[in-house]
């Protein structure tokens, strides 16, 4: 019998820059503190992300990994893809096409 991991989804929207970086990071960390094994960040409603938004995600990743949990990413548009590639974060994060793709792969 498999025990499914506890998955929580964070779904930010609009422009993810310095103005939203702190609450975004907090939301991720709150889920982990409440027992999530995996936090899936679904970026489908994010139109644009800059280095401050990405910085928040990377900061959260460190804390989450230290606690033995994971951050996974899905539904990034071409702009986010550009940002992830330029900063080599496409090699740090596992990125799924969408939530279905994630569900098939992980659950």
């Amino acid at each position, binding site marked *: 019998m498999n025990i499914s991991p506890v998955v929580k989804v964070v779904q930010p929207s609009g*422009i993810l*820059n*310095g*103005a939203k970086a702190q609450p975004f990071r907090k939301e991720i960390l709150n889920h982990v503190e409440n027992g999530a094994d995996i936090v899936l960040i679904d970026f489908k409603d994010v139109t*644009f992300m800059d*280095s401050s938004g*990405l*910085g928040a995600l990377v900061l959260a990743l460190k804390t989450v990994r230290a606690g033995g949990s994971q951050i996974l990413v899905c539904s990034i548009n071409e702009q986010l893809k*550009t940002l992830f590639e*330029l900063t080599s974060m496409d090699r740090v994060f596992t990125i799924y096409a969408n939530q279905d793709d994630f569900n098939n792969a992980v659950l």
Partner: protein
Amino acid sequence: MRQFPSDVNALDKVLSWFEGMNRPFIPQKVCLQCQLALAEAFTNAVRHAHKNCSPEVTVDIEVTLLPQYLEMRIWDYGPPFDLEQQLKNVPETVNENAHGGRGLSILHQIADELSYTRTDENRNCLLIVKHY
């Protein structure tokens, strides 16, 4: 030339202004890179150059589209800053452990030419040149 308030929340205005420009001849990838470079430049001006300024102090942006390349100029009223020296401290590739400094690194990677010069009227001008 367009003026924007020194407020990170004004980034949406900067982005929609840039998106509204007619540029069918620029490949999408280059467009996205330039949009990101512009956002990083604007945010740097607001957060660093205008750190001690009120939001009414504007960041002035000019984008010039030419057949082979584009030029983006971002003016601020901040103190002088030695960008070249700072760039020497920024690694070529961004590693996972770097928290800050990603903005400059992104600018450095995207731009074919990048300069930050002191102008008359005690302003600074960041120039980003990108070939298509």
